[in-house]
């Protein structure tokens, strides 16, 4: 065993992800809350909108706004264990590249989002869409994945920033929601054609493109800037 040589980033990221997923399985803090919130919101909309089913823009809007708010729940909790149980120090003491924490947390958040969507999107379809709906599954999945990546990147950054301030629960939505509005816009406008009453239409290419650009820009930015949040 070498005397404190730096550990390869890949191994570190894997260790961090394992740890976080294990913690989530044990404490069940994030994913159930997100799921419960999403499904309750869909139910409320079902009754509140007094419409038999939604289509197009309306449907897409309801889905994406709900997912966005659900993600705020996860972002709030993303770094809490680190903050309260000395996880930051424990990580900072290791001979590892500090960006590994960003990569790991973003991946974990992404996994949470995917897990929630696996249940929430079908629930949404059942509660709020026409019975014939959920065509265009590949396009939907693409949009979901791209949007999740954007939310994961921005959410991790905002989560790390907010956890060390005094008003964490307030700052996360105040910062994350405006930053994620382009994601909502692009994802909703992209999803809308899939759920038209008259029949699914093609998704205009510019929406996945905007999502991709957003992911790229903020991904690189967050990667560059994350270290500064951990320094002292």
């Amino acid at each position: 065993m070498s005397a404190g040589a730096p550990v390869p980033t890949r191994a570190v990221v894997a260790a961090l992800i394992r740890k976080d997923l294990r913690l989530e399985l044990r404490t069940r803090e994030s994913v159930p809350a997100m799921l419960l919130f999403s499904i309750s919101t869909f139910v409320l909309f079902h009754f509140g909108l007094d419409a038999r089913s939604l289509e197009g823009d309306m449907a897409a809007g309801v889905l994406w706004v709900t997912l966005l708010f659900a993600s705020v729940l996860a972002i709030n909790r993303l770094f809490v264990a680190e903050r309260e149980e000395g996880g930051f120090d424990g990580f900072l003491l290791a001979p590892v590249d500090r960006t590994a924490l960003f990569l790991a947390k973003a991946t974990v958040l992404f996994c949470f989002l995917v897990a929630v969507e696996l249940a929430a999107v079908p629930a949404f379809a059942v509660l709020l869409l026409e019975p014939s709906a959920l065509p265009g599954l590949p396009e939907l999945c693409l949009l979901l994945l791209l949007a999740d990546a954007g939310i994961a990147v921005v959410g991790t950054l905002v989560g790390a920033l907010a956890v060390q301030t005094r008003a964490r629960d307030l700052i996360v939505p105040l910062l994350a929601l405006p930053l994620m509005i382009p994601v909502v816009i692009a994802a909703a406008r992209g999803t809308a054609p899939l759920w038209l009453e008259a029949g699914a239409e093609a998704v205009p290419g510019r929406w996945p493109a905007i999502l991709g650009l957003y992911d790229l820009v903020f991904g690189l930015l967050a990667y560059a800037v994350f270290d500064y949040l951990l320094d002292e």
Partner: protein
Amino acid sequence: MNRHTFSRGLVPLSIASVVLLVGGFAMVFLYAPSDADQGFVQKIFYLHVPLAIVALVGFVAGGVYGIRFLRSGDRLHDLRSYVAIHISLILAVGALVTGSIWAKASWGQWWVWEEPTLVSFLIVFLLYACYQPLRFSIEDPDRQARYAAVFAVVGGAFVPLNFMAVRAAESLIHPRVLSTTGGTMPGSMRITFVVALAGMAVMFVTLCKYELTSKHASFQLRALKRRLAGEDDGWVPVRRSAAPQL
């Protein structure tokens, strides 16, 4: 630290901004023609658009100074970032208000949600409105400066991205004053607009310099007080604030 660093050029800049702004407004009322569609009310455009443009550029500048601070650790950059964002926020309020007046006069509503430029500007404003509360919520001055810089950098990148996304979901209500295809601005309007924009930009820089000079002076004053009081005698407790401490 050179005490003339910030105040140098303040007087010429102030004069220049006054000249440009007064000249610009004179041109607005005396020189530029009235718009065929909207009539006199359209003249608020010469105030609204420069405010908006300068505010957005100011936000991005705040991000640039944020990057410089993170890389160098020089608190002065943090101060510049703070001041740029601070004043841009004020200009942004002005832009929103004038935009609202213009909307009411032109289209009969105080706010138009379908209009991408207005909405994306509002989103940017709401984001940056959190800048000072964020700073205030962090007590440690080092961390406050660093986190504020991170925020400024992310916000600065967000501004163009946001406008692009919202514009792609476009509507055609907002007069595209600067687009090449739709812009049918006669030369006299264009000149007036440029003068107004220049005046607003110079005024922004002047206001920034004023605030920088004033803050710098008060820091030096406090440093002197501390030195006079003797370093060991406990410390002068600083009131918690959102503004950077040098």
